[in-house]
């Protein structure tokens, strides 16, 4: 079991900077994120986009800002649990929470800081009526082990890198691979596109363009997919597996079930210290809401800074906290 002072859920820019402000108060932090690398939206959605409203930086690439934050918090030796979703939160003692992740990692802390941004990124599911009844019965949103598809008839849908790359890999493994895409051009890497075209030419991939999957059929287990080509009447395509690969989209996820006051998909906080309605749990950055809320990285940094002051007083009610400027005291990291 991992022990820390502040358990930060979400390793985006706000979660990362909070490690720094907590570190100045000698509080240790551990971060959990469902994505496999730190940075949140900045890494996942727009790493190459410039940001113009970070004070002191006329322009900074989102990816560079994350790199800089990682460097800035290094002295405070934060712990990271990445690629695991914060799943279950329990109070195990008067002043102690235990978080369990989707992979069973357990982390204990007196204070929880939810810096979850838009929520956790999960595969986009096509809005096909009965798709959830076929999940794990033929429909997979993520490919864990390609061997599962050996000798099977597989239909992949999507037009990005993952749809292309998996079609290429599965062409060697599956009995039949079809790739359905809504137009004729692909946005994936050029050599992947060329490879798919080659495999389509040699008959190893059945490339169905200007088309979309619109329905699923079977009797408890997926047997057919209805495909609509160019607005024509949909036709049935026999398959064993349907793998829709349409990227990731954020969802509030399990956090919504922790007894926190939620309004419009965001956690309601008190702007005094960004505390939630549950003692010891705070919410900072894009995931919180309050009158006048602006979803800006800048505001999240401010929220995290004030939050750790309150967290300190909560953890050590009898200790005096004296505020020190980094220009006076420097940055004294942890051993």
């Amino acid at each position, binding site marked *: 079991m991992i022990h820390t002072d502040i358990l930060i859920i979400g390793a985006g820019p706000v979660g990362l900077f909070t490690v720094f402000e907590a570190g100045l108060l000698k509080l240790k932090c551990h971060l959990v994120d469902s994505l496999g690398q730190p940075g949140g*939206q900045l890494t996942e*959605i*727009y790493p190459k*986009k410039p940001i113009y409203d970070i004070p002191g930086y006329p322009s900074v690439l989102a990816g560079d800002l994350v790199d800089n934050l990682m460097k800035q918090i290094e002295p405070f030796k934060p712990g990271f649990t990445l690629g695991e979703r914060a799943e279950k939160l329990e109070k195990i003692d008067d002043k102690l929470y235990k978080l369990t992740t989707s992979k069973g990692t357990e982390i204990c802390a007196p204070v929880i800081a939810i810096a979850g941004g*838009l929520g956790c990124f999960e595969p*986009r*599911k*096509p*809005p*096909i009526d009965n*798709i*959830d009844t076929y999940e794990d019965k033929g429909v997979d949103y993520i490919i864990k082990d390609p061997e599962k598809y050996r000798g099977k008839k597989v239909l992949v849908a*999507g*037009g*990005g890198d993952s749809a292309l790359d998996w079609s290429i890999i599965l062409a060697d493994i599956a009995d039949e691979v079809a790739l359905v*895409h*809504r*137009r004729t*051009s692909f*946005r994936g890497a050029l050599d992947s596109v060329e490879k798919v075209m080659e495999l389509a030419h040699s008959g190893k991939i059945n490339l169905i363009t200007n088309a*979309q999957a*619109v329905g699923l059929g079977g009797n408890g287990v997926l047997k057919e997919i209805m495909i609509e080509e160019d*607005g024509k009447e949909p036709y049935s395509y026999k398959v064993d597996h349907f793998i829709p690969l*349409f*990227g990731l*989209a*954020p969802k509030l996820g399990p956090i919504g079930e922790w007894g926190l006051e939620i309004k419009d998909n965001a956690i309601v906080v008190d702007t005094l210290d960004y505390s939630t309605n549950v003692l010891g749990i705070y919410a900072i950055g894009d995931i919180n809401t309050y009158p006048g809320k602006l*979803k800006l990285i800048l505001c999240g940094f401010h929220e995290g800074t004030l939050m750790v002051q309150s967290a300190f007083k909560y953890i050590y009610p009898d200790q005096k906290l004296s505020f020190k400027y980094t220009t006076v005291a420097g940055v004294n990291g942890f051993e």
Partner: protein
Amino acid sequence: MEDNIINVTVVDREGIEHPLLAPTDMAMNMMEVCKSYDLPVEGTCGGMALCASCHMYILSDHTLSEASEDEENMLDQAFFVKSNSRLGCQIKISEEIDGLRVQLAPVGAE
């Protein structure tokens, strides 16, 4: 038409029509107009054409600027894309689109 204000109509996912007023002098786009009227448009990325959560269908016969390659690429991540599909964030509010009618596209399964 009032100065700097145009009329647009948004048909929501339940088929209900919402006649809206939109200012042409505030550099707004259709995603932002929908959000300002609390219509269910997510606009996750904030208008960078980096998500597909403001997918809508153009119902009127307005000629809009062509979709950029970025927009086309993002539409690949949307569902039920049709020939009249666009990302709302890429439709700038201007006099030319006065009277525009759009319909919100379905969102992904929960």
